């Protein structure tokens, strides 16, 4: 059974279509990257899955059940978002104590070690924490909850590079000991490129990419070389981007590149190299823009 199964999922707010006919599944024990520009529909999608809002049309299953107001399914989920509001009366220790009672798989030793790692002051009012410390508190809850489905929606606003690395390290270490399904929604794609095994890319409410990270790496390539050779090599492939300087051109191509193809590129004096995940995502998103 899939952890999440969405089919034709659509969410409209008056005249805005936040999600447009989105279909995908999330499987057990994998780390997903939910990518896309601001306003692409990432947060709406996560709100739908976590039962915080309801879909206009389409079907959605969370652990095989409808998520809205479904206690049994929702208890298996933790959703850490940058915009999480905390009541003014709460101190850090209150939030931790509540989380301990609300999440069935909560590991308090792990939580306390994260609090120490992030130097979180337990007795401080949550509303008086800095931006980065608020994010660290969210990250702590999200990791220590050990929920079978864990969402991080831009969890590290204000976190410095060291704290972010700490988050990635702790996530990976804990994930290997306690496998679960993790969805990371972020703009810092290069930072998480090694973490995520599968990419879901949203653009203006549409799911434009649903692929394994490794597959995608082999699928999107930069080809640099003489104009005629490159144009010849490009036929039959999707050209995502093209920039020309004199007689030399560089194109970003999407397609399959097997060994024979690589040899052919070499013969044509074309330099073929894989692009980073971030570049691939940028190209795939920009290409759609020029389509219209």
């Amino acid at each position, binding site marked *: 059974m899939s952890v999440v199964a969405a089919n034709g999922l659509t969410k409209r707010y008056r005249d805005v279509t936040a999600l447009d006919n989105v279909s995908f599944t999330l499987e057990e024990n994998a780390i997903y990257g939910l990518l896309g520009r601001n306003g692409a529909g990432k947060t709406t999608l996560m709100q739908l899955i976590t039962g*915080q809002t309801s879909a206009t049309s389409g079907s959605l299953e969370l652990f095989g059940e409808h998520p809205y107001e479904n206690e049994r399914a929702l208890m298996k989920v933790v959703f850490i978002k940058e915009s999480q509001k905390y009541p003014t*009366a709460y101190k850090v220790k*209150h939030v931790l104590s509540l989380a301990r009672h609300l999440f069935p798989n909560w590991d308090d030793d792990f939580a306390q070690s994260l609090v120490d790692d992030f130097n979180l002051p337990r007795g401080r009012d949550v509303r008086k924490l800095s931006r980065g410390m608020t994010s660290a508190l969210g990250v702590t809850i999200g990791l220590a909850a050990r929920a079978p489905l864990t969402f991080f929606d831009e969890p590290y606003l204000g976190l410095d590079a060291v704290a972010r690395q700490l988050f990635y390290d702790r996530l990976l270490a804990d994930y290997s000991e306690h496998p679960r399904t993790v969805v990371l929604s972020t703009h810092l794609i290069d930072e998480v490129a090694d973490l995520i095994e599968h990419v879901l890319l949203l653009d203006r409410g549409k799911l434009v990419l649903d692929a394994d990270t490794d597959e995608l790496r082999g699928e999107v390539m930069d080809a640099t070389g003489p104009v005629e050779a490159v144009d010849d090599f490009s036929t039959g492939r999707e050209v995502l981007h093209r920039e020309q300087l004199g007689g030399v051109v560089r194109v970003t191509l999407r397609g399959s590149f097997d060994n024979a193809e690589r040899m052919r590129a070499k013969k044509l004096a074309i330099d073929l190299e894989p692009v980073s995940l971030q570049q691939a995502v940028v190209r795939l998103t920009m290409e759609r823009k020029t389509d219209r």
Partner: protein
Amino acid sequence: MNRILDVARLHTVAWVNQLLWPWGIMAASLVVNILIFASIDEAAPGKTSTGGLSSLYIVSAIVAGVSISQVFPFALGMGVTRRTFYLATVLVNLVQALVYGVLLYLLNLIEGGTNGFGIGLHFFRIPYIDVSNGLLQILVYAVPFLFLNFLCIFAAVWYVRFGTNGLFATAAVTIVVFGLLGALITWQGWWGDVWHWLSTQHQASLLVGWPALVAALAALGGMAAIRRANA
């Protein structure tokens, strides 16, 4: 039920604020009243009743309303369903009203035993609200908490669901409806009948029965409204 108790902790975890503010403000009001009435008891014989107790009810109602507007979005973020959150809220408010009712009854007994804190002050034993039956006295203190808190909770749920405009629009409609009702009663000359009906009501109905009914309706309305609310 366990889940409801766990979720109820959302309201009670910061219990210092929850308890300290209402009772602290009431205590301050009591001290001020004792000081004032001790200094003027010669000047105003027989007028030793005060409405200082109302501060406790007002602050409690505000705390209840804020608990919705602030705790509900947090609860949703923690994977709590609207239904469980609301049931936990109702539970907390019921228990709180009962505990506060008992505490106020004890203070009522202290006031009686000390002859109004030595100066004949009526802070807890307010005329009409002071009844002879102990159990009824506890209910008389407890039910106004439910009445005010659930009306406040209902308004807060309305605000969470429909925003500022929704809340004020509803308030405006309510004012118009009750205004028209008042005008209708005046026009038809029904005020005499209204007063007659009120004065023939049993003390227990007026202090406990009817407010409890309104509180229950507000609580049910809040439940219906929150099921479709998004933080």
